[in-house]
């Protein structure tokens, strides 16, 4: 078994508003595994629930339903000491490097916190350990230690945050949009660090992103999320070179790429309403059929390539469902 962590039927429902508010399902019954030394990219647009998945695995949120199994233990109900133990192995880096640092402390604090919490016994080697971990992410400790976050660039800060995870026995890193706020010229270098960590430290990374080309570049496995559901999952090459879900195809065709001009498309419009319990892509899907009113489950179509779509499974319908005239006119 080389599964590192297993996500089973994970669901998160947010309650908004106070008494008698309404509910939003951010993550809708998803299951997947992350293997050892695997970079898995979780791709989705805003509102797809991808960030929620990351925060659930980091236990910054509590799941409404489902289990997150790490080393045989369901961590979704852990508290206090046991949760602290879990953080020895599962760590995170967030989207906004400047917001990740408490502005009133020097950057050293992110290391000090770990020495206070986990590494009391290594306090005598503290400095060497920090210097070493900074070197692993390509930073010179002399440029870093003793400075305030506002004196650093976003790229440096993100590297520092990755370096801190190296002090622990991190097996899984949740990297939530970690480079989306960095400049293009420094982005790829930070991304490369993830690849190196996988290769050298055998770390697994859940790379959450909305940028498909970045996902393609760095990950072994790709998972496409839409409205809280996994619609496609598989080896990165398979998913990107042979996309099966109409949503994935739409996404890929919308990626701006140098050297490939966008094909002019019809203005996409909502076609009718989303049936409750139906395919989440129903109202935007050009292939929607009657059978899609019942949600398709994630099925393995090829080896290492799963999709949740009847059309991709080969279910055929003679006439794509008629939605009538566009509701606007």
């Amino acid at each position, binding site marked *: 078994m080389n599964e590192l962590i297993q996500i089973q039927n994970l669901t998160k429902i947010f309650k908004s508003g106070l008494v008698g508010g309404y509910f939003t399902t951010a993550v809708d019954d998803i299951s997947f595994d992350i293997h050892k030394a695997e970079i898995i990219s979780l791709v989705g*647009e*805003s509102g797809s629930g991808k960030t929620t998945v990351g925060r659930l695995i980091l236990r910054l949120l509590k799941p409404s339903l489902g289990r997150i199994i790490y080393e045989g233990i369901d961590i979704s109900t852990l508290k206090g000491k046991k949760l602290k133990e879990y953080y020895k192995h599962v760590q995170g880096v967030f989207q906004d490097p400047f917001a990740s640092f408490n502005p009133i402390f020097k950057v050293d604090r992110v290391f000090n916190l770990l020495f206070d919490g986990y590494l009391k016994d290594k306090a005598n080697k503290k400095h060497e350990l920090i210097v070493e971990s900074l070197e692993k992410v390509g930073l010179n400790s002399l440029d870093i230690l003793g400075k305030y976050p506002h004196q650093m*660039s976003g*790229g440096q800060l993100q590297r520092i945050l990755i370096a801190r995870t190296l002090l622990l026995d991190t097996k899984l890193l949740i990297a939530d949009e970690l480079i989306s706020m960095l*400049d*293009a*010229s*420094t*982005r*790829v*270098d930070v*991304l*490369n660090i993830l*690849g190196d960590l996988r290769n050298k430290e055998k770390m697994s990374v859940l790379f959450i992103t*909305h940028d*498909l*080309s*970045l996902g*393609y*570049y*760095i990950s072994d496995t790709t998972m496409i999320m839409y409205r809280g559901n996994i619609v496609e999952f598989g080896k*990165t*090459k398979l998913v*990107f070179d042979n996309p099966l879900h109409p949503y994935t195809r*739409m*996404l*890929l*065709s*919308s*990626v*701006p*790429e*140098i*050297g490939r*001009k*966008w094909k*002019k*498309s019809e*203005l*996409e*419009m909502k076609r009718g309403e989303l049936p409750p319990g139906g395919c989440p892509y129903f109202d935007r899907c050009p292939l929607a059929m009657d059978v899609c009113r019942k949600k398709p489950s994630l099925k393995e179509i090829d080896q290492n390539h799963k999709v949740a779509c009847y059309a991709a499974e080969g279910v055929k319908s003679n006439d794509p469902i008629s939605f009538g005239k566009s*509701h*606007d*006119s």
Partner: protein
Amino acid sequence: MAKLLDVKDYKVYYQTLKGQIKAVDGVSFFVNSDEVFGVAGESGCGKSTLGNSLIYLKAPMRYAGGNAVLDGNDISKFTDDQMRRIRFEKISIIPQFAMDAMSPTKKIKNIVVDLVREHNKRMSEKEIIDLTVERFKMIGLSKNVVDMYSIELSGGMKQRVVMVISTLLNPRLLIADEITSALDVSSQKFSVEMLDEFKDKQFVSSVIFITHDISVLYQIADRIMIMYAGHVVEIGNTEDIVSKPLHPYTKLLISSLPKMGIQFSQKRLKGIPGYPPNLLNPPTGCRFYDRCPLRVDPQKCQNEIPPLVEYMPGRYIACWAYTKGNDKNE
């Protein structure tokens, strides 16, 4: 082709307690009629300051020199009142913050009517609303939207509404400031296509499209200008810039972009080491000097600002490697 906008040695500084931040520091370029002129660069390079200052120069932004000639008038010398009259009618903007560009307590139709009637008192309320509805329909928005408040709209819808409002009076020049950066890929494409269509229909003549994302520019721009730390480094046709970048910054920047089909395990891309200079106290010479692998004449590169020269017809570069006498590149 006629020049619609001709900008020469244009400077805009930010006044702060500690001094002036030279955000746009001697920029020269022109925009032709009927073209999409792309402006690209990383955060802090001055591209948004440039775009915003052309239409609405507001403290702490301060005009610090140069000219900007729009349709024969130097708008950099315009008074507030002169400027106010050409905004929206001649030059307009889709702001970066389209998500909260509309007052939350007014209906869309009231906003539109109030804004248009500041310029055109002859148009009746009904005419204005009809025109808005007509344009809404063109981009798939229901006519009911005019009766809504902005807070009832989704992010993508707000963006579309703002695009319609900004172009309602058919401005000659439209500044599109990072309109795709907050959007998902599918909406990005939609916005760009919408802009294209507005241009086809002659709602706008020329567009200055500002973005940090060169691959989006590739989809829409006729020409591209690359900025770095308040300076122009390179201007040229889109295809040339993308496939044959000349300035070392442009080259490195484009080669650092991941493309579909490239994987870390097969080909390791590289970024540009180092960071842009502080614009409060910029270096005296080339602003890319610190990070430049080329430094064709280190003494000169470090101490003298390279001028923007027309290296080939239509291709402008500001790098000592491409000025006469140093022409040992490529």
